[in-house]
């Protein structure tokens, strides 16, 4: 019989140990399930966790995949910290990409890269507007933001499908559901390295991550806004007594996270696809939820978490190609990882005590 005894103060050791132990447990249970379902566990392990590091261009592809995850995860961090459960980042990602795409396609001849500032801003607005729907319903009418933001994911997926097959379809696309290609000014280029050339798909969008991590760190740790978010999440009563306006915080974090998801959408499309198509996201919005938790809801943690999860995603692609394991298997790892991370959170606050007998 296990009982939990509250600790006097949060255990610092567990903050570091928990994520590492969680990853260890996840791999263990993942292997167990693979064995049970008749796949070669060691080969699967190799494909998912090791093969992404086997070539330098693959390593840079990890960064490319981590880029949207980190951007979205940072926004979700703000929501989850303040106990606002935005799980519709996938839809906000799509709507951001769509609005930016609409603007990009409206200026077919633009060449200056300054135009990217406009499309990225449009992406922010698109994502934020989509998140504004659950925000306003939550604060005005007390409608559950979890369900609304999730329903809007399905709506956004259908909407971009409609737009790309209808109004924005390229007449020259031979019946494929694709928009016209973006103008030069709306494309994010790959980074050329002197003497090496391009490293896989590594593109300038990564600079945004480099900028975002310190900015969000300062916001969370050094500003009043960040302080309010922390208090609201960890001690809602205290926030109330301090006179923090809960509603305006809820709206702000939803707009920011929606906006960041939208920006991630712009970067993904502008750097990797170059035109609109029915599928632009591939589940980044959902995966980022795991990234935010694995990163312990801190900007630096999310940077590492994004890289780890991106590795697993790429590894799963490899496993699909070489072993025929369906890609969705990453969900299996993500789910188990989240379970153990959350358990780790309990262990930060409670000690385990083994007591004998007693039922």
């Amino acid at each position, binding site marked *: 019989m*296990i*009982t*939990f005894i*509250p600790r006097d103060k949060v255990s610092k050791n567990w903050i570091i140990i928990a994520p590492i132990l969680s990853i260890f447990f996840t791999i263990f249970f993942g292997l167990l*399930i693979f064995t049970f*379902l008749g796949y070669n566990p060691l080969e699967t392990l190799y494909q998912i966790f090791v093969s992404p590091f086997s070539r330098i261009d693959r390593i840079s592809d990890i960064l490319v995949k981590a880029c949207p995850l980190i951007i979205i995860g940072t926004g979700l961090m703000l929501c*989850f910290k303040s106990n606002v*459960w935005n*799980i519709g980042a996938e839809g906000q990602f799509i709507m951001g990409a769509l609005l930016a795409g609409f603007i990009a396609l409206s200026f077919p001849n633009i060449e200056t890269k300054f135009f990217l500032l406009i499309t990225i801003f449009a992406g922010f607005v698109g994502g934020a507007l989509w998140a504004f*729907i659950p925000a306003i*319903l939550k604060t005005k*009418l*007390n*409608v*559950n933001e*979890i*369900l*609304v933001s*999730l*329903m*809007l994911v*399905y*709506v956004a997926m*259908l*909407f971009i*499908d*409609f737009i790309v*097959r*209808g109004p924005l379809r390229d007449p020259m696309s031979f019946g494929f559901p694709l928009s016209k290609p973006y103008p030069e000014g709306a494309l994010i280029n790959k980074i050329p390295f002197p003497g090496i050339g391009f490293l896989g798909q590594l593109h300038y969008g990564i600079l945004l991550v480099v900028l975002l991590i310190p900015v969000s760190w300062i916001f969370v740790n050094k500003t009043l806004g960040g302080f309010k978010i922390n208090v609201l999440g960890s001690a809602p009563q205290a926030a109330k007594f301090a006179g923090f306006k809960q509603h305006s915080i809820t709206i702000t974090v939803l707009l920011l996270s929606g906006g960041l998801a939208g920006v991630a959408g712009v970067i993904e499309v502008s750097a990797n696809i170059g035109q609109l198509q029915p599928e632009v996201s591939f589940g980044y919005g*959902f995966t980022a*939820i*795991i990234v935010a*938790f694995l990163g312990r809801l801190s900007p630096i943690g999310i940077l590492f978490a994004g890289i780890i999860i991106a590795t697993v995603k790429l590894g799963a692609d490899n496993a699909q190609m070489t072993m*025929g*394991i*369906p*890609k*969705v*298997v*990453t*969900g*299996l*790892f*993500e*789910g*188990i990882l*989240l*379970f153990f991370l*959350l*358990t780790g*959170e*309990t262990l930060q606050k*409670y000690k385990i005590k083994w007591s004998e007998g007693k*039922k």
Partner: protein
Amino acid sequence: MEALILTIIATSIPLLLAAIGELIAEKSGVLNLGVEGMMLSGAVGALGAVLWLENPYYGIVAGALSGIIIASIFSVFTINFMTNQVATGLGLTIFATGLTGLAGAPLVGKTIPSLPKIEIFLLSDIPVIGNILFKQDFVAYLSIAIIIFISFFLKYSKPGIILRAVGDDHESAHSVGYPVKKIRWYATCFGGMCAGIGGAYIPLVLTPHWSEGMTAGRGWIALALVVFASWIPWRIIVGALIFGGITIAQLVGQARGWPIPSQLLSMMPYLATIIALTMISGRLSKNNSVIPSSLGKPFFGSQ
């Protein structure tokens, strides 16, 4: 017309089952957002069992068991390890999407026989309603039986009242000696069983083969249905039929070539969910006595 009503009923049954299961879990104070995942597991479990044992009734059993197994994972973490219920529920759906994708891969392209209809002696001969109400499959009858049972269980039976007490105020329930954690375990597993059978119904009756994520958001709509029904069992029937109706309406619209793009029609169930939640939540925030007060809060007391 009769065929239309029958399809609407068939479409609403998975929603109805998943929602009544979740209602019981929520009444005990557990918010399990993993309904979508439990339904997927039920679907894949049912498909596997029917392909293996070649009898659709085993599909129901396998669906129920799969749902219970997945729900126990949720119980271990949220009830015993006291993890955040919202995050764990999300994790459960993500986990189950991966697991069922993996388990379902060998089943792709295989078709299973449908669940047979059972005619109830004499009653099925009544014109019009006979065909609709008394010529249904086993799960349809079962789901109505569960709703009726749960209505009485919650209102009049002692265990039902204890369950509600645990959901409304777990500290008081604990101090008078009720095993809060054990009751929540049972309630969550019951929720998993219902969601599993609801998920099993999808391949058994609606589309007889596996595709990844084939529940298409039904689990989330079921969660919304519980709110829509204000945690009152019989209202789930009404809600499920409305959503079944909307889903079928958009399919009929697509088939008959209504001059609205098909994607916009397909949005209807999701938009309707948002509208229904909005309408009901305004009323609920004025009268929140129906919401279990301990919903979503972990219980720390030792047991």
